[in-house]
């Protein structure tokens, strides 16, 4: 299966990356140069073969979804730009400001 320029534009959009048009031909060629080697897998008979879901004999046991606290070296407010009610405030985007925010906080940048 060959990948074309439109495929690369599509997956770049999915991956939140932008690919300049001038780089597109080289990238398409490189990705096809890699994917052509993957075609060997299509020739392997995997009827009745389960896809790998875990590694080794030590299966991961189900456990309560609670772990020990992360051993923070510094308090949150020592490294976060700003903290309110235990939540980190990250720099604001123009789109957020225009969305009509009822907060009276100033944007962080």
């Amino acid at each position, binding site marked *: 299966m060959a990948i074309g320029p439109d*495929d690369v534009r599509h997956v770049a959009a999915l991956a939140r*990356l932008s690919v300049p048009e001038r780089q597109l031909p080289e990238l398409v060629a490189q990705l096809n140069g890699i994917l052509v080697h993957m075609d060997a897998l299509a020739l*392997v008979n995997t009827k009745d073969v389960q*896809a790998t879901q875990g*590694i080794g004999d030590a299966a991961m046991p189900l*456990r309560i979804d609670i772990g020990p606290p992360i051993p*923070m070296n510094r308090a949150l407010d020592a490294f976060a730009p700003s903290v309110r009610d235990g939540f980190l405030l990250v720099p604001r985007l123009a*789109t957020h400001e225009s969305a009509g925010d009822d907060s009276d906080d100033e944007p962080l940048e």
Partner: protein
Amino acid sequence: MSTTAVSAVRESFRRMADVDAGPTGLNCILWTDEDRAIIDARAVDDKAASGVLAGVPFVAKDNIATTHLPTTCGSRILEGYVSPYEATVIGRLRDAGAVLVGKTNCDEFAMGSSNEYSAWGPVLNPVDRTRVPGGSSGGSAASVAAGIVPIALGSETGGSVRQPASYCGIVGVKPTYGRVSRFGLVAFASSLDQIGVFGATVHDAAAALEVIAGRDPRDATSADCSISPYRSAGTPDLRGLVIGRPREYFPKSLDARVAERCDAALALLRARGAEVREVSLPHTELAIPVYYIIAPAEASSNLARFDGVRYGLREPSDSLREMYERTRTRGFGPEVTRRILLGTYVLSAGYYDAYYRKAQEVRTLIVKDFRDAFDSGVHLLFTPTTPTPAFELGAKSDPYEMYLNDIFTATANLAGVPAMSVPIGEIDGLPIGGQLIAPHFDEQTMFRGAFALEAARAEAR
């Protein structure tokens, strides 16, 4: 004469200066804080600690979280990032008295086989500065090979400890998946990643692994399995040990000198009483296609978190989407971009079954190959670590040609079994490693073979 931790750490920094370990030289060390390291060393001396690693300086790959030095993963997108917590492995080494003296250069987000893909420039091989040290943990390998430290931490996803160990002439260990906590290791491909160790000797690597191994409640994939005293695995008598020589790792196309060094190493093991048998791992040649589907697929998901909101670089924009795209496009280098695109493609609608599901099915066959070999009565497998010695900087520009460097190492990551590289000789003055592979959680037997090989080679010289 006793050596204090402070003097050992000072010697490490002297050595960094002597070999020019920074960006104008080997470029293996990215971040240091000598004053802090001396304070840590003084604390070890004050406690008169007597552990196996008391006062031993070490370095860690730049994708392992530390609280006093940056963790950038060799990427501009994490430039200046300092973690607020440290990796479990760092804490365990410090608790054992070891002293962190630096963070090491690596391929960006551990994606590479030559250490030429770091945002902070390539690392040079201390054995021959015109050549690569291997990757992705090339800075850690070069630091041990240059005599800066006796032990170093790296990470493995497809061979990133064993391959640079082979190129730099040192020992490199990838433990069983689950043997060592990954808490604090920046994720690349979570079903493959494992922290590994480098040592100047087999004993050094065994000592470091003993300290970092074991269950960690902060990593759900870390296994609650007993840890053997790997340092005491050495014995001159290998009678009863059966070593498999997988024919697929010795194809006709393999450099005859590499095959000859491997067979010479096997002869040394046989002379100590081991039995060597030919075995087959029939799906070996499919490992690279499988690996380069699964690893990029997992990477495309893991690296989605680097979006300019929470960490490091942010490219301002008026729209959220544009900010994501600008930040990621500027922050990631070409190899990481390539792998994210590849991973996104193989997971996308219409291609998932043909690529990702198929790769996971073939991975099951690769896992079965190992199980069948070990069930046939073989205790260890012996293979070349790499198809060639270290190549020249800039010699490989085709991505797939670069990926083939992992051809003998990626299988162990796909199967989750432990494997290590031990020096077995030189080719044109360049070191080459042999690889020992053991069943899950049987690092003890792997070290038994490694100690014997190291001792036999020393005797033969």
